[in-house]
């Protein structure tokens, strides 16, 4: 069953951070290809997007398979520059030198992950309510089934 990540960071409102926000928004179209390649390589991401709520919050929203620790470590290793930019916008985030430590990175991102409302549809109560039209099929299983049906992606 896919898990959800609702990473929600409050953006610093000081002039320097707001300038960094504008730079990040301008840069994003050029880095999204890098992000897409990493996500495809992981074979555990169902969906992913980065959204801004005004100039006050930035969110990374994903649905992924498997355990959070492996998922977090994978993307920390594959996209360090992107995460440096994202966490660099966050109010109260540890310095990037500290966030490069896997445990610090994991703990901070877990702390900023907002849990959905409702009760889990699986035996794992930590999932809360996350609907999937594909039941608990994983990315690998869906792709394998599509490939078998001649509908390779």
């Amino acid at each position: 069953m896919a898990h959800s990540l609702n990473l929600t960071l409050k953006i610093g409102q000081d002039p320097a951070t707001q300038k960094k926000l504008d730079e990040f928004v301008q840069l994003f179209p050029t880095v999204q290809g890098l992000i897409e390649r990493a996500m495809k390589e992981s074979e555990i991401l169902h969906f992913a997007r980065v959204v801004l709520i005004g100039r006050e919050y930035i969110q990374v929203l994903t649905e992924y398979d498997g355990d959070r620790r492996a998922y977090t470590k994978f993307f920390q290793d594959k996209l360090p520059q992107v995460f440096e930019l994202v966490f660099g916008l966050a109010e109260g985030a540890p310095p990037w030198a500290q966030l490069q430590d896997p445990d610090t990175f994991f703990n901070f991102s877990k702390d900023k992950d907002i849990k959905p409302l409702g009760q889990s549809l699986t035996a794992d109560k930590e999932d809360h309510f996350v609907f999937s039209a594909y039941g608990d099929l994983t990315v690998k299983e869906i792709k394998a089934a599509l490939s078998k049906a001649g509908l390779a992606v």
Partner: protein
Amino acid sequence: MVVDRENVQGLILRGYNYPFSRHLLFKFPDAASGRSFLSWVRPQVTHGATWPEGVKPEPLVNLGLTFAGLVTVALGDLLAGVDANLVVTKHNVYPVRNPFPPEFIDSPDPGSLGDLGAEDGPASWWNGRFATEEIHASVHLYTQSEAAMDAAVAGARGAALAAGVVELVPNHDGTPLGGAALTNGRVHFGYVDGVGQPDVDWDAIPSARGKVDLRHFLLGYNSASIPPSASIPSSPRWDDTHDLFRDCCYMGLRWLSQDVPGFERYLDDNAPRIAPNRPAAEAREWLAAKLVGRWRDGTPLALSPEHRDPALAERNDFSYSADVLGTRCPFSAHIRVANPRDQPLGPPADSGDVPRLLRRGSSYGPEWVEGQNDAEERGLIGLFLCASLDRQFLQILRWMNTNDFSRVFDHEVPGRQDPLFGSDAMTRSKTFRIPDPGGDIEVPLPRPFVKSRGTAYLLLPSLSTLDKLIQ
């Protein structure tokens, strides 16, 4: 030498192999009672210095502390003494931070453990006699005789009473967890125990070739000054707490009951069908071997897939590179999941190392007699030692519950699991696959022969850390 062995609790550096063991759990009503009890324990704690040849001291004594126990005794003050921004609370805003990992701060999460059934969830842990959150300390006793154990337990209980510390007793008959080793070095279910422990290099960082780095087990040796490719992350980080927690080690304590008659019946019921060309007794042993990855005498399937071989029983230097189809050792066999060795990990698991654990558990309950269909309570008090509960202990449990960490599972039926220790609540596959040159064999998953009775996360403090907690 890198590690001061006299600063490290002995249980970390070696398995004791004493026949009798007990694991007592305690709650500290307040800091004063906790410190008083720790003061009694401290001079008895067995450390890692080698004892004289031929002299086996007893009792051997080791101590664990939960996060709640550390906080009750002194942790807040200790941390503040290092850095005013280090705190014991959660959800802080940097630079204020709690240097401990969340899985240690929080109560054990049943979802991470796979303890999601009605009979093995936290509500049923410890026979419902206390909550896991009440555990502050564990005292582990090891002796050569039952009489010595009775005296050791009496001593610990007397000291607890004198200090005003409460013992948390999970058994209805008032006995602590623990028991006596089985004959011939085996554990319940009949397998030889103690094979396959990591060969840790306690004398060098990084470790010598072929050995396991000590930073997989001891805290206080990683920092930002070590290049990321060479560092093995653990918390608290040396950069935060310096030497305060050097030589400490985390321990997952897991009380597991085992249905031995049920397991033997499973072998009786399934072995003849899946191995019809073997004599009945041999077919049972073959099935038992396929489930675990070693014959019950210890012979690794990877080295001898068709029969036991006493000459190979203690071998731990094998790989899976010649077994790419799993026809020697099934991909989901217990030891192949718990330690994939050289089998390549797939994304995203390949972003980390193969997690290792030191296993220091002991059996409890009467030895099962063949042919006996009893309802005796028996099982394992598992003590799993590591530097990161999440990256090591829980990671391996996740792999056991869902076999998805390697490309070998890409074409498997969804939801494959470790057949003995995977959680029934977390699987979609109801069978265990035995790859075979003559055609794969699907066996009903044996379930559930292992039930969780309680889990706690503790820190085995170093002697210097313990001294600081007491002062």
